[in-house]
């Protein structure tokens, strides 16, 4: 699959003080690939996701996107981040802006599109995630699932080359998880490159090309989902799966 590597992490290490949160991470994500990262909490999966667009700094190793190492904080990094969409656990919609403005803001300010063109595109995307009727509401007026779908539309509005999902359904009520996953499944079918940190094993089985299992800051397994779920190699993965699949 990984014919054309888009995201490449080489020997990445990161510490929070004494705590070694990322240990010698090597990971390549090809264009069009959907990689799901799973693991027990505190295993470093969110941190890994956030290093890809450098919301988290690393202490050693390299992260490259589209063949170029990530630049230092500044305009060059900002330009690169525009190519990498990110969806957060807590949605992070701009609280002082309407749904439509949330989706249009970066198009106008970063992509330099005209207001009219940006709004037209935003409406298309909101329609795609089923929320066009809510365009003029503020984020607080929407449910969690609706907010997260707006957040996905906002990320898509930049026409990113890849999307990062940092536990996108973990803050949602159970009945809202599926509406978000459905949007993500559709994106996967459309060939979007995605790195998804999640606890949704159903999504991993159905939509992922690869499952990356992390524990204690390191990558323990990196395999096709069917293989991983039916016959995990490591004890850590067996233990993890036995705990989450039983109930």
């Amino acid at each position, binding site marked *: 699959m990984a014919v054309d590597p888009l995201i490449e992490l080489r020997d990445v290490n990161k510490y929070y003080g004494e705590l070694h949160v990322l240990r010698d991470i090597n990971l390549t994500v090809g264009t069009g690939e959907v990689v799901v990262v799973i693991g027990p909490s505190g295993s470093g999966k969110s941190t890994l996701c956030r290093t890809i*667009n450098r919301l988290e700094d690393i202490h050693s190793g390299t992260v490259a996107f589209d063949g170029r190492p990530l630049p230092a904080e500044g305009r060059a990094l900002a330009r690169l*981040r525009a190519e990498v969409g990110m969806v*957060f656990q807590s949605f992070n919609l*701009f609280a*002082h802006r309407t749904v439509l403005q949330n989706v249009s803001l970066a198009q106008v*300010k970063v992509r330099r599109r005209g207001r009219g063109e940006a709004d037209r595109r935003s409406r298309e995307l909101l329609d795609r995630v089923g929320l066009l009727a809510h365009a003029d509401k503020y984020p607080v007026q929407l449910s969690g699932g609706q907010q997260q779908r707006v*957040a996905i539309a906002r990320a898509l509005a930049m026409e990113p080359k890849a999307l990062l999902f940092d536990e996108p359904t973990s803050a949602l009520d159970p009945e809202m998880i599926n509406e978000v996953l459905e949007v993500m499944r559709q994106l996967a079918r459309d060939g979007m490159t995605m790195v998804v940190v999640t606890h949704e094993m159903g999504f991993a089985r159905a939509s992922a090309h690869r499952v990356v299992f992390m524990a204690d800051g390191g990558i323990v397994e990196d395999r096709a989902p069917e293989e991983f779920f039916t016959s995990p190699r490591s004890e850590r993965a067996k233990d993890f799966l036995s705990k989450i699949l039983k109930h």
Partner: protein
Amino acid sequence: MNVLTDNFSTYAQGFLGTLQLTVYASVLALVLGFVMASFRVAPVAALRAVGAAWVTVLRNTPLTLLFFAVLLGLPRFGLVLPFQVFAVLALGCYTSAFICEALRAGINTVPKGQGEAARSLGMTFGQTLGLVVLPQAFRSVIPPVGSTLIALAKNSAIAGAFSVTELLGTYKTLGELGYDVVWTFVWIAVGYLVVTLAISALFNLLERTWGVAR
């Protein structure tokens, strides 16, 4: 009682002086406070150091001392300006340290995820601050900034001691003319009340329009 009607032009001049000091120094304090608050949250360590030093020095210097430093110090370096301008500089810089900290407190009330979302969309530091963080911080800083500007209005009385025309200083003129000191001060107090209550009203209006909805 007739101290006011007899000397209306003296009072009016003093009132106008206080008003000018307040308005000019407020503008200076807001602009400088805004710049320094931006510095204090900037990703560049040197800017953060400048902001921290600015606040530490100005917030911890007695205002009267600062007036001496500006009025007597700057002319030594060849900078000679009207006393009123010196007073605006001293008052504005002093208050900017407090405005800076009020703004920074407001910035800290905005959840971290808001800035992260903006940055992940490719916004620069300036865009993130200006388009996403500060507009949300603005709502929660209205009350403390209002209080700080009211303090500034009252602090402007110190300028009177440095022969700048302002409201409190009128008591000397009127005292020499033999007017009752109690009534002289009553009308001075009323003058200050007009300024401070006007600031209060302005900030109440801002809060009703922009404040955090509860």
